[in-house]
């Protein structure tokens, strides 16, 4: 098999089709790409997925940086799509020769392709220059390190837990969060008895309802086995996995999930606990700004808790998000300087980052009381990699498909466990 370079192919064929003039535009490896800024330029472009509720805060900090450094930074955002669409847009921009200088991205298998394809710059020199190793949580840095290369710098480390509506818990006669899995099931029964749907999750895209299954797997398998399952080091075809799938189905059959949960859009159903349609959802601290404060509700009416696993150590699902720098940017130093600026505790606080990886930038209890509470109570607990970052997208979608079949009753729990083993072992071998 011959090796080809994409740019080489484009250059060659362009030359044949359109002559030397056009080939000069598309071929060659020295191009910086249309959108990445040229060396020496004072222009930067940052691509993110911040929503309307927080983009202004980011832009304010960037403006501050620009004023101090004489740069002009454009911020583009694609909010609301989650990890389902944003990476596609970014990839298309990079392929079109127009990539941003800096982009925000999730860690794990979502950020990995950009590192693997060498679209993202190795940031090791900047880790040394700015001392990020000592300023940022080591676990979080691990989430943005790919094949041993620090290709991204994390700025947020988010833990997933249950966020609930206190008045609906009170309606069901429940005074506080459950401490064990049995108590959680009992809570669900009490909520259903008073006509309240317990857990608001939606199956469109797969990743939202997956948060329940990964929790159930942590509960049945425990930390050690769960981690091994995620890397393919242990077979999924085992009783603990079958039990987790059995419980997953039980949640639907007992109406602990919304009716027709598989077809619901997470964006519609997740805020249900704020609107009083569901008692709780499984989500991260961003929900305080995005759902509670946006709805102009008082955080005092809501609470959060780590889903009880009955295992030691107690863990929750979590993931990191950070920034990458375009390997083809002509402005790597300035891009890194911008990142260092927004990684300062003062900037992180000004941006109301609810789960910063930066030491000294813990959430402000006055602005985000629930996020601060989560950080104090559970922020120090270990977390397992959220499963849509543990698997590449293709395997994650196959995984979601198994969950979908199981909830619809077309696959039984033992067959689902076997199917998962086929998916994970095929991936581990590849």
């Amino acid at each position: 098999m011959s090796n080809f370079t994409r740019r080489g192919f484009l250059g060659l064929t362009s030359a044949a089709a359109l002559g030397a003039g056009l080939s000069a535009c598309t071929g060659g490896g020295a191009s910086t790409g249309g959108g990445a800024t040229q060396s020496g330029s004072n222009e930067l472009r940052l691509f993110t997925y911040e929503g309307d509720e927080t983009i202004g805060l980011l832009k304010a900090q960037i403006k501050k940086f620009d004023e101090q450094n004489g740069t002009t930074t454009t911020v583009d955002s694609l909010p609301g799509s989650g990890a389902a669409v944003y990476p596609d847009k970014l990839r298309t921009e990079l392929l079109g020769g127009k990539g941003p200088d800096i982009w925000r991205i999730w860690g794990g298998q979502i950020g990995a392709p950009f590192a693997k394809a060498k679209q993202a710059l190795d940031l090791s020199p900047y880790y040394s220059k700015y001392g990020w190793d000592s300023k940022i949580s080591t676990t979080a840095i691990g989430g943005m390190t790919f094949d041993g290369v620090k290709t991204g710098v994390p700025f947020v480390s988010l833990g997933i837990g249950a966020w609930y509506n206190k008045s609906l818990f009170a309606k069901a006669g429940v005074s506080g969060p459950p401490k064990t899995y049995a108590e959680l099931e009992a809570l669900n029964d009490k909520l259903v008895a008073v006509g309240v749907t317990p857990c608001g999750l939606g199956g469109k895209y797969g990743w939202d309802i997956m948060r329940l299954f990964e929790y159930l797997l942590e509960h049945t398998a425990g930390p050690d086995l769960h981690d091994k399952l995620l890397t393919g080091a242990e077979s999924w075809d085992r009783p603990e996995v079958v039990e987790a799938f059995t419980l997953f189905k039980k949640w639907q059959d007992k109406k602990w999930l919304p009716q027709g949960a598989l077809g619901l859009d997470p964006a519609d159903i997740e805020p249900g606990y704020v609107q009083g349609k569901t008692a709780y959802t499984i989500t991260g601290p961003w929900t305080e700004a995005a759902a509670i404060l946006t709805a102009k509700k008082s955080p005092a009416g809501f609470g959060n808790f780590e889903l009880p696993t009955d295992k030691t150590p107690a863990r929750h699902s979590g993931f990191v998000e950070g920034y990458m720098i375009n390997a083809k940017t002509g402005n790597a130093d300035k891009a890194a300087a911008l990142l260092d600026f927004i990684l300062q505790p003062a900037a992180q606080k000004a941006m109301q980052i609810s789960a910063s990886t930066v030491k000294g930038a813990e959430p402000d209890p006055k602005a985000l009381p629930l996020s601060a509470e989560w950080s104090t109570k559970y922020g120090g607990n270990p977390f397992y990699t959220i499963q849509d970052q543990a698997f590449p997208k293709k395997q994650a979608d196959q995984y979601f498909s198994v969950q979908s079949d199981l909830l619809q009753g077309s696959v039984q729990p033992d067959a689902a466990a076997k199917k998962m083993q086929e998916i994970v072992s095929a991936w581990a071998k590849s």
Partner: protein
Amino acid sequence: MAGTVAVKPSTVKRGGRWSPWLFAIPALAVYVAFLVYPALSSLWFSLTNWDGLSATYKFVGLDNYFKLPHDPVVVSAVQNNLIWTVVTIAVPTVIGLLLAIALNGKVHGKPILRLIFYTPAVLPLVSIASIWGWLYNPQYGAINSFLRMIGLDGLAQAWLGQDSTALWAVMVPAIWLRTGFPMLLYLAALQGIPNELYEAATVDGATKWQQFWHVTMPSLRPAHYIVLALSLIDSFKVFDMIYAMTYGGPGTSTQVMGTWMYFNVFQYYQAGYGTAIAVVITLVAVAVGIPYVRSQTREAS
């Protein structure tokens, strides 16, 4: 007058035999740059294992094409495409024709009714997907609420949340938005049929039904061609409605070839394989389009 030479206008050929090509060059250049070249480069990438992001890739011959029949999602996507094509051509066409006939008669408020029936076609697709997503909401949606209100609780379903109904549920808004277009075309064609034909048929004792089959339908032949050809193209390239409403799910139950191509190219970093799917879609669309083009050519000649 001596020295003047009479020249026949017909013998003047500026630019010689190349002149037609000179006029065609601008259009040809655009055609080659934006259609032929991307199509050929796609064909090339379908023969590689390119991940869609890296600078390098390997030539793998026809491997991607051999993999297609063994991909269970491709098999179900082809089935879904066939169902989609048949239903979303037949139903809007028939409803469009019936509406056109109704509106061609003596109906009050014709312009308003035309506007109402055509409005869905101009709405942004994402809005349509959102509207119908809410209508289909199993707990709070208008459809299930209505069914419960009239005592048909048993028919209330998780329309988009189960394999058995999801594809059909997406087809309903597709039919809703696509009915207005054939209606307008048929309406225009109906208005072009001379009234004398109906008068002659009436004199000959033809019933309304016979008039429809022997006068109206043959007169609508050119309109049928246009409606069917455009509907076929629309149906083959289905992507947006599925993507926006179900994202191919639950599981992969509503995947069609267009969305599965997208998932492979853009989400799974299997651009070579995804492009092979795109090539197959194109070949099938071309093969299906040939009879239409031939018939149109015959009509023209």
